[in-house]
């Protein structure tokens, strides 16, 4: 019982406690007898009371009780007449009762004091633990990169973590006790009363604020406020978390600006495209009509003068007609070329094998009566616009047929090479006249021709068309050749992720 009430290291074991009672009473008795022998009078009662108090203080109520009984007996035996007996006269009983009551009172006071002291000690321990926890929490808050500070309802800063120091540049010592929004020169997006109203209503607020650092630079922060209430429910403090969004805002603004630019550019581009379309339309209409007329009237003239014309005259007429026809072809090719730039690509999975077969059928006409050995390898699937890819293949095959014309036996190979994880590479190889690699950069340009037109006819648009088609598929096109040693054209196109 005593152990439970006073669980203290100073607590003595039962023997020690009762021994203490015995000892203190013995000391008091000894002192009293000694003092009496020196003719001091009536000192025994305060001494015994002191002994009881000492026993009560250090030994608890049990020891106090023992000390009380021993004191009474000693007092009775040594100081109350008849001396040296334990006999108590009736007239002495009230005296004993008062002594016992007084001793009990001393014991009780002492016990109460001890309890109070004990409680105080417990409270102190608890407080210490709490302080420890709090400081741990505070150091935890210091660990976070977020900027956190606490201010009371008068806007006075009461806590300032390391994140806040890092962001704003003030140490906690410099900020504690200062008014937060004065120090930080906060600019609010709304009237402060509105913000406070929302905070008091819902317990929280968040928004974007502009503040000033210690070095004077402005900083945009995403700010979250939480209201802390005291035990009576009254608003006590505001915990504010800030995240620096200056960079993000700058980037957002940049993106917005870029988007605006992009929108303007695509509007311009759409306009240009429209113009181009109108241009192509009128080219296809208005340029062809005069050509047709030139050819038509020349033909009529030819018919009329046929007999009167000499050989030269016939040749001149033929030249006019041929030129008209050539220009017609040029216009057609150019229009097809410009259409590739303007048309939407409609992509799907295309079997290159089928496509090559179709393209072959188309160039067959050009290869009639020729000895051509076709070597078609295994071909993968391609992801792209079918009709455009077909046109590109037709152009490549037709070129191969054209430039092997001087060979008694042409060899044309179509195959796939160096396929990687994200690219398909197709090649068309011939044993034709080839070209000088010196001019390879001109090869894919519009109207660029590396052969004289009386040796190999053409408009110079075919390879430009191929390149444009490949580029529209996000691919690459290149060629290798040796003069008179054949040429190889490569098309590399990215594989889509889903096939």
């Amino acid at each position: 019982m005593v152990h439970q009430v006073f669980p203290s290291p100073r607590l003595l074991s039962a023997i020690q406690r009762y021994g203490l009672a015995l000892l203190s009473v013995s000391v008091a008795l000894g002192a009293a007898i000694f003092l009496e022998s020196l003719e001091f009078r009536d000192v025994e009662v305060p001494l015994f009371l002191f002994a009881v108090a000492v026993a009560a203080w250090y030994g608890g109520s049990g020891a106090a009780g023992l000390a009380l009984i021993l004191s009474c007996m000693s007092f009775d035996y040594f100081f109350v007449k008849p001396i040296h007996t334990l006999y108590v006269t009736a007239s002495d009983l009230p005296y004993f009762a008062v002594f016992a009551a007084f001793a009990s009172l001393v014991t009780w006071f002492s016990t109460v004091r001890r309890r109070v002291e004990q409680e105080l000690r417990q409270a102190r321990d608890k407080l210490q633990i709490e302080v420890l926890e709090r400081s741990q929490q505070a150091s935890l808050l210091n660990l976070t990169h977020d900027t956190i500070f606490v201010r009371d309802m008068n806007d006075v800063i009461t806590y300032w973590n390391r994140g806040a120091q890092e962001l704003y540049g003030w140490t906690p010592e410099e900020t504690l006790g200062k008014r937060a929004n004065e120090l930080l020169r906060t600019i609010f997006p709304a009237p402060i009363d509105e913000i406070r109203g929302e905070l008091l209503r819902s317990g929280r607020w968040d928004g974007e604020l502009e503040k000033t650092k210690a070095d004077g630079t402005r900083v945009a922060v995403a700010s979250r406020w939480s209201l802390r209430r005291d035990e009576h429910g009254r608003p006590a403090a505001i915990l504010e978390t800030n995240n620096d969004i200056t960079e993000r805002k700058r980037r957002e603004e940049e993106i917005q600006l870029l988007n605006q630019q992009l929108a303007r550019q695509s509007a311009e581009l759409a306009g240009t495209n429209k113009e181009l379309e109108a241009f192509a339309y009128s080219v296809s209409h208005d340029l062809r009509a005069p050509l047709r007329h030139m050819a038509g009237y020349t033909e009529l003239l030819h018919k009329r003068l046929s007999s009167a014309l000499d050989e030269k005259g016939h040749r001149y007429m033929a030249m006019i007609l041929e030129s008209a026809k050539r220009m017609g072809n040029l216009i057609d090719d150019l229009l097809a070329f410009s259409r590739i730039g303007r048309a939407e690509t409609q992509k799907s999975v295309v079997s290159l094998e089928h496509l090559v077969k179709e393209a072959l059928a188309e160039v067959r006409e050009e290869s009639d009566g020729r000895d051509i050995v076709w070597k078609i390898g295994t071909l993968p699937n391609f992801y792209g616009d079918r009709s455009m890819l077909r046109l590109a293949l037709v152009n490549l095959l037709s070129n191969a047929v054209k430039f092997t014309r001087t060979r008694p036996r042409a060899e044309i190979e179509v195959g796939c090479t160096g396929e990687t994880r994200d690219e398909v590479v197709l090649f068309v190889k011939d044993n034709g006249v080839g070209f000088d690699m010196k001019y390879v950069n001109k090869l894919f340009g519009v109207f660029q021709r590396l052969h004289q037109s009386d040796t190999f006819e053409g408009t110079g648009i075919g390879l430009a068309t191929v390149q444009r088609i490949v580029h529209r598929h996000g691919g690459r096109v290149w060629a290798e050749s040796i003069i008179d040693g054949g040429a190889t054209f490569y098309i590399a196109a990215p594989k889509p992720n889903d096939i």
Partner: protein
Amino acid sequence: MVEDDPKDVELSLVALEEYNLANEVIVARDGEEALDYLYCRGAFQNRSADNPAVMLLDLKLPKVDGLEVLKQIKSDEKLRMIPVVVLTSSKEEKDMVASYKLGVNAYVVKPVDFHEFVNAIRELGAFWAVINEPPP
């Protein structure tokens, strides 16, 4: 024949002459004139009310363009049976799609080469005026 370019008219007529069809050709120089002819109004109010056997229609025309003429013909109960052949310089896919959607009977791109042009016109004339049975 609806054609604004006199040279095209002349060349076409030359081509048709070879089949002796030129005499029967009535030429309208723009879309409005073509519609006037079909509805027997304006300069054509005194003509006999028969529909032509075939209409050769250019697309790029002054005032009312070819597609608009085609649209009016094909949406008119009395005229919609007239076979209409679009005869144009342009190979624009857009025009071709629009014409077929409106119910054109044929779409011919005039070849630059005169021989091909003559052949095309001749065959058209022969097919629509001789071989084909016109609607009642």
